[in-house]
């Protein structure tokens, strides 16, 4: 396993730069697979009584099941090629990207909880979290489509992946290796 932390990758840039922009604080590579540690803003506060109530109820239910404390809470895992999972027990989800054709992909996001909700408060907390996650993921769609459009236009011939794009670089390299291996095998 290879590990690259923000501190190691920022010899020319103050690590605070990474924190200000919310970049991951660590990148890891497991053969074909990859992962990153999500930066957490310690100043983040719930915005209102329902969000606070949802967070508190969700955390309480998880703690009662012994699931709140986990070393994987800020880990985002990427299994080659396109299965992703966040280890956070409050917002545990997987995201699978399926190719539809050469220019189109479909993303399927699944949220997971341990067992059925035991009462109305726990069910409410799960749904409050579900709403937040849907709204957050929806904001990615425009960015992804714009990225596809830009790449498809041919306007850019080269991309220089920076440190915080190490997972993209790893995916690109892994795909390239596998395609070349297949071509060599075919020839």
């Amino acid at each position: 396993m290879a590990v690259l932390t923000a501190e190691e990758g920022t010899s020319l840039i103050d690590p605070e730069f990474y924190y200000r922009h919310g970049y991951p604080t660590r990148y890891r590579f497991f053969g074909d697979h990859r992962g990153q540690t999500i930066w957490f803003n310690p100043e983040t506060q719930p915005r209102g009584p329902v969000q606070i109530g949802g967070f508190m109820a969700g955390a309480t239910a998880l703690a009662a099941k012994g699931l709140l404390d986990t070393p994987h809470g800020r880990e985002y895992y990427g299994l080659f090629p396109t299965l992703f999972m966040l280890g956070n027990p409050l917002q545990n989800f997987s995201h699978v990207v399926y190719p539809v054709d050469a220019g189109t992909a479909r993303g399927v996001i699944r949220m997971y909880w341990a067992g059925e909700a035991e009462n109305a408060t726990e069910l409410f907390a799960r749904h409050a979290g579900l709403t937040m996650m849907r709204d957050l993921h929806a904001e990615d769609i425009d960015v992804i489509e714009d990225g596809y459009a830009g790449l498809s236009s041919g306007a850019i011939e080269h991309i220089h992946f920076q440190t915080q794009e190490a997972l993209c670089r790893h995916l690109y390299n892994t795909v390239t290796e596998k395609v070349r291996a297949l071509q060599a095998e075919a020839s």
Partner: protein
Amino acid sequence: MAALPAGFRALEPFVERWALAGEAARAAARSAASDAERLEFYQAAQPLMQAALAHLDGKPIGSLTGCDAALMRLMLSLANVYHSVEVLGDAEAENARMRARLQFTDHAPY
């Protein structure tokens, strides 16, 4: 016949619009409502949230029926609408445009 349990009748005007079965239907109602309609529901339901959940916690969550099921669905709509009111604010319309493309596949019991 009352649509909601005693103590929550103040929410009866919201039952038809917000006590909907299924997360997809509730999310659609949220997006279809105006800012004023969402705020009106939120301002009525949020102060009763703790009492409503405490009432429902005393019942088996897997088999709520009648008034109790309607109250649960209202609370789950509140779990939708709060994000527009408490978090998104002026960004709600833009987020609604984007989330319209991220459809729910419903597995929720209510």
